[in-house]
């Protein structure tokens, strides 16, 4: 392979230092969006350039990397990013949540609980939770600074007025460490409780928007709600068709053009671990397994 010689994990050391400083500041102020000088990456914006830069900045030679896209280890995006770091940093990669030291994710938090020492890196498209009600960045920054968050409840109010319940199903706003309101990236709200008091460090990178924010380990993360319309998780009311799990977040998969469908765990690693341990659902088809990278 005659690949040009990249610096370890693609980014030059100065850039990594700059990003690490932003990360340190983000950890020091949980939930606060720290601006950083986002770089052009060899992939389009929207493909996880923010997460990739954060991962590149924290990755060491001994790390074990897992990359998931909507819970899955085997989608194009997940594979590409995993291979990217395999090639530019030569780190070991894995699909196992437990074995990974760094997990880059798009739109999910793994089902298996994270442990101390792990870092979860989120890819974030739009970091500003107030954006859709207040388009002015100058104004939203001031609102964060003064903790003026009434507007966030306006959005939830609108949900209830329109649908009878809080219909926001993903990117559900949270308050971090009783101070900053934060967009958890477009994870399903099912995952919100996992952010609370989590043993792992959670880092959020938004490449196009040039923002990094963080939730340090064991930080309080509360989903916003009303007293009379409390926050609730949501999942399809079915067991996983492959592993029979009834407490995991499910994807709905259309299987034919006659209305056939099945529900399976969105977290492929979780599902496979369960099947390997002898759990079974109503469908027997074994999922495709990616060849381990060498």
């Amino acid at each position: 392979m005659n690949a040009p010689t990249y610096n370890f994990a693609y980014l030059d050391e100065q850039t990594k230092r700059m990003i690490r400083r932003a990360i340190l500041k983000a950890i020091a102020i949980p939930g606060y969006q720290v601006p950083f000088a986002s770089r052009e990456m060899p992939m389009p914006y929207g493909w996880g350039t923010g997460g990739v830069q954060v991962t590149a900045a924290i990755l060491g030679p001994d790390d074990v990397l897992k990359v998931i896209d909507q819970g899955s280890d085997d989608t194009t995006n997940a594979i590409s990013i995993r291979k990217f770091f395999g090639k530019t940093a030569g780190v070991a990669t894995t699909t196992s949540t437990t074995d990974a030291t760094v997990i880059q994710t798009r739109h999910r938090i793994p089902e298996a609980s994270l442990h101390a020492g792990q870092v979860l890196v989120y890819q974030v498209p739009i970091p500003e939770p107030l954006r859709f009600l207040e388009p002015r960045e100058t104004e939203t920054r001031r609102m964060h600074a003064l903790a003026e968050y009434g507007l966030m409840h306006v959005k939830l109010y609108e949900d209830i007025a329109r649908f009878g319940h809080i219909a926001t199903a993903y990117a559900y706003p949270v308050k971090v460490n009783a101070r900053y309101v934060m967009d958890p990236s477009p994870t399903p709200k099912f995952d919100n409780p996992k952010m609370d008091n989590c043993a792992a460090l959670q880092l959020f990178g938004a490449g196009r928007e040039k923002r990094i924010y963080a939730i340090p380990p064991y930080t309080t993360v509360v989903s916003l709600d009303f007293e009379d319309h409390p926050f609730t998780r949501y999942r399809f009311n079915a067991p996983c068709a492959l592993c029979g799990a009834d407490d995991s977040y499910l994807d709905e998969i259309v299987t034919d053009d006659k209305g056939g469908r099945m529900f399976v765990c969105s977290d492929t690693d979780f599902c496979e671990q369960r099947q390997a341990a002898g759990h079974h659902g109503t469908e027997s088809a074994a999922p495709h397994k990616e060849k381990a990278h060498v």
Partner: protein
Amino acid sequence: MSELSSLDNDQPLLVAEGLAKNYGRLAACRDVSFALYPGEVLAIVGESGSGKSTLLQLLSAQLAPSAGHVAYRMRDGVLRDLAELGEAERRFLFRTDWGFVHQDPAQGLRMGVSAGANVGERLMAVGWNHYGRIRDTASTWLERVEIDVGRIDDAPKTYSGGMRQRLQIARNLVTEPRLVFMDEPTGGLDVSVQARLLDLMRNLVSELGLAAIVVTHDLAVARLLSHRVMVMKGGRVIETGLTDQVLDDPREPYTQLLVSSILPP
């Protein structure tokens, strides 16, 4: 008997002293001093460019004066210089103890958000966290400003001009402010719609014992709403006094001109 009315309150709510604003060599506002008492409605009249809108912005701390200062009596009874308030305090004042009614309701409302949420926003901003109670309060206020409660979930962009203006008023009054600033509140409305709005504002102001500062070029608005009037010309206050006194017995040439320019009803 006299204690019943807030007008007899002897502590001013807002005090302006030597207020001035220059834009380069242009003096938009010069040497304005007055005191506003609780429950008192002051009209600032004058033609376009007379400095009345600049003055309103100075008084409501949206613009920093070139000279002079404005002090406001906070809910704890202490008179504070607005320039010395922190931004958080100033913004809190704006969301709670003050209201600001814009001439163009689109400036004071969230046009794409339901009427209920428009009214409820201030409540949520001060920590109300019960959907049912927020909605009930919003409904009550829609009724008070004569908007059909059936329209509570519609966005103001579907409302008529008069309804939007009434909604803006409800949105401002829901936190029971003590002072409301109004910038040409009836401007741009049909005459029949204006009359209804004026009547509504007049009642709300007296029922709630609100103090208000109303900028208008319409002397009929000043007569119907205000106790006192200040006539502005070229950035200066040229005449001030009881509204009916200034309008029925104007002294200054310019005021006489203004008054004589009204078409008889």
